[in-house]
């Protein structure tokens, strides 16, 4: 059981790492990027925080960048065998 738990966390950390990597690639203030993983009832909830100046960069025109972030994180989650959702926290 403890082993299964560890495995799940390992998988989740790859997904979290993917979001962290993507966000850092998009922002001006990489040092202010923070991703918190919260295990929700049905999915791993990834909360993304960035410097307020970078908000526009992770959301993009008409939310296109945010949508793309979610789509790619979903793919990473599929690879890791977990469900994950992304919340961009103001």
């Amino acid at each position, binding site marked *: 059981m403890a082993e299964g738990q560890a495995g799940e966390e390992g998988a989740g950390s*790859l997904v979290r*790492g*993917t979001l*962290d*990597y*993507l966000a850092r*690639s*998009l*922002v*001006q203030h990489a040092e202010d990027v923070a991703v918190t993983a919260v295990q929700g009832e049905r999915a791993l909830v990834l909360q993304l925080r960035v410097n307020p100046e970078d908000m526009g*960069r992770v959301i*993009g025109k008409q939310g*296109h*960048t945010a*949508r*793309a*972030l979610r*789509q*790619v994180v*979903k*793919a*990473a989650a*599929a*690879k*890791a065998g977990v469900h994950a959702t992304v919340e961009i926290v103001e």
Partner: protein
Amino acid sequence: MNDAVETTGKTVEDAIDAALEQLGATEDEVEIQILAEGGPRGIFGRRVEAARVRVKRRDERTPEDLALLEEEGPELLEGPTPPEFTEQAEAAKEFLAGLLGAIGLEGEVTVATGPLAVTADVAGPEMGLLIGRRGATLEAVQELVRAAVQRKTATRPRVNLDIEGYRSRLRSGLERRARDAAARARRSQRPVTLEPMSAFQRKVVHDALAGFDGVATSSEGEDPSRRVVIRPKGEPRRGSAPRGGGSRGSGARGQRGAGSRQPPDYR
């Protein structure tokens, strides 16, 4: 219409205003290069140098359009690769390699530069995951590559992404469906209407059928439901009186400008 002008003015703003007027453009539609700041010159500041700017209408073609041009218009290939493309290619490669590593995917990234666009290709054993349903993840990755490249290089990104040849397969699938539909139109002597498509896809269809005997293609309706109609050639003439523009032969391609927005010629 002129696409670039050089103007002068008392101040940079004046020069820009004059240029925008000449171009009939707004500030967010152009790229501005300041050639001279203007202002006082000389020890006593008595002589005033004019501000000079070069204002160019921004190229609104999408990277997909440019990739297509690259494929179809070898005459356009003449000319140097813009210097920022090398930097963009490197940034794209670095970003994509990092993404594969973050997700835990094996794969190889190759990039190439041409005069009109940067092409990035990702190949590897589990790429279906990165392509997604109907290419949705591929589109998302492309969006992110462009955003990352723009952030890194501070240049307008011209990067096109393909994964395991997905886009090129899509293109040949579309061409095959276009030919099937054209054969159907010719056999039944009735128009065949395809599903709504993007401008890029419609162009692929028009081009695929340009040399197809016995049919003519046109695009009808308004985006996003604009679609290609394939008509048997001569079919409209069999009716009572020919109407409107009639169906077009390979000339359909030349009609894709303002003229093609006429009401559809239904029969």
